[in-house]
């Protein structure tokens, strides 16, 4: 599904150059749930940006669902992002004055679906995250966990090949974090491929594969048996 070979990403300023990723190799197969961990500044976000085609890379090869992304135009990268990737952000990134329906609708608009097909997909995605009855709500009328579920619905509506989640529970309390994680596990069990950047070691251990990045390189690659989510209930 996702193949990165020898990827390097270098940020240059007038006086310094920083290797955010160096000789980075990673293969993720369809249906996997991969947690990416590492300390701040280790290159996790850069990896996610490159994987999500939000940023380019300087060396190496990257193919997503069999398509090599090297040398693709902005239009082609945008189409690939739209069709194959679903993003889940730490800050949810919902447009505050758009209804839930319109927020989920956004990626579908750029896909060129007709209104009937968009409606079907939005309703299905909102149903998947348990918010079907709230499509006319504004984000501000929902809790943080519900907002993140809307963001997940937005990511799911395009039926992407892979979900990229950047600390999806980072802004949530433990109960809501658990609900979101349950949702992600459920989606993974239904066949979604998920790569999740997280600081939470418990969450990382809960998924079936953990990749640790330090100084732009993978330093640990652990594979676990699937297990239940060890998130504690609030007192």
């Amino acid at each position, binding site marked *: 599904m996702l193949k990165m070979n020898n990827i390097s990403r270098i940020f240059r300023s007038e006086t310094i150059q920083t290797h955010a990723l160096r000789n980075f190799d990673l293969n993720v197969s369809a249906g996997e749930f991969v947690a990416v961990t590492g300390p701040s500044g280790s290159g996790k976000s850069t990896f996610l940006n490159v994987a999500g085609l*939000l*940023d380019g890379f300087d060396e190496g090869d990257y193919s997503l669902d069999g398509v090599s992304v090297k040398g693709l135009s902005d239009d082609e990268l945008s189409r690939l992002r*739209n069709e194959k990737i679903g993003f889940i952000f730490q800050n949810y990134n919902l447009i505050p004055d758009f209804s839930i329906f319109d927020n989920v609708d956004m*990626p579908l608009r750029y896909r060129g679906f*007709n209104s009937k097909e968009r409606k079907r997909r939005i309703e299905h995605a909102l149903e998947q995250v348990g918010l079907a009855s709230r499509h006319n709500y504004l984000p501000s009328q929902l809790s943080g966990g519900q907002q993140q579920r809307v963001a997940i619905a937005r990511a799911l509506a395009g039926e992407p090949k892979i979900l990229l989640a950047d600390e999806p529970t980072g802004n949530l309390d433990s109960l809501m974090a658990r609900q979101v994680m349950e949702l992600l596990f459920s989606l993974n069990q239904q066949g979604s491929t998920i790569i999740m950047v997280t600081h939470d070691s418990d969450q990382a251990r809960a998924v079936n594969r953990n990749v640790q990045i330090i100084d732009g390189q993978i330093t640990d690659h652990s594979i676990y048996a699937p297990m239940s989510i060890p998130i504690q209930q609030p007192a």
Partner: protein
Amino acid sequence: MEMLIYYIKLSCRNFARNSLFFTLMITTLAVGVGVLLANLSILKSMASDPIPEKSDRVFNVSLNTWPNKNTLHEQPLPILRYQDAMHLLKSDIPTHSLVHYASSVYARDSESNSLSRFSASVRATTQGFFPLTDAPFAYGTAWQQPNALELVIGDILNQKLFGGGNSVGKNVEIDGKLFLVVGVLKPWKLKPKFYHASNGRAFNLTDDIFAPLEVALDSEWGIGAQQSSTVRISSSSDTRNKNSYYLQAFVQLDNAQQKASFQNYLDSYSQSLKDAGQHPLDINNKLYDVNAWLKKNNVVDDRMLAFGLATVLFLAVCIFNASSLLIARYHGAKFETGLRRAVGASRKDLFYQGVVESLLIGISCALLASVLSWIFLQLSISFFPHLEDIAEIDNELLLLGVVISVSTVFFSALYPLIRSCTTSLSAEIK
């Protein structure tokens, strides 16, 4: 089409979300465009061709027949003596010829019970005036005899005296004399009034009364325009055989051969006067076509041109201001731009969305600019009162206003839009 509707919907949401910003921006640009439009409407009236279908075939006749060596009169004069004018009219070379002078009278409907008289501007002229100027008749025709007590009246006077309608056959009383109305003109605006473009009269309304020249002289209707004489003149009719210069002449010459023949006719006439010792100056006669004649009379006011330049610069300042505002606006919208890019919008998609938004702002700006331009035009007219009757914002100018508004908004938005679309994606969202 669906995306276009989506972009319009997004733009409307943006307007509602940032109403203060958009009001400020639209007002900034509308003021710039409005001032420019008001100025253009005046310049257009000043610089327009009053008779485009034949302006290159209608010529003012300027002769040099001054009887003594006065360096002030070495250039050909646009005003002619009666005898010079009559000589021109004798020629059968021009397709049409006219001579005229301006006067004014008080007129009333002879049948009216009221003794109130209306002030009326008079063009004392010859029958050729009407075909040469293409004066539009609503009723009747020109007079047929040069000494007939007959008039053609303009639409405004017809309204005042007779309440409009077909007034042919009615009588107008002027200074106790009755004049038969033989023709009534339709509303007629010449922009500028080329047949009397000198002496700052180019933007006056067309006249109320058109009367036979001989009748006007015999009636002693005063000469209400530039007049130069070498002798004392006691009355209008006294000008016929004296060196009194006041008549203006125009001819219609339809081809180069006609023009050359007529120029030769004029030069021969001047030469014959010179040979007879009636004027000592060099032969110097000129035929100015309508546009050259308007230019020679500085019909386009230099102050207006300077003001025009200032309004263009002012619009440029407005564009820079709007552009700065838009940079701030797109900076503020980075999050949404980044998000849209992340979920699959290409740079092209965002650019098109920006263009649609610009178009909508441009149309709003055009509507406001149209209203403001009318207000600014009224203000301008207060500085240039002689333009009151002709300065107007016509459909062509309104269309131009829309084009300028949309273009200025587009150009104001272009740089901020390009910057917004090319910003690094990963920096914008977390």
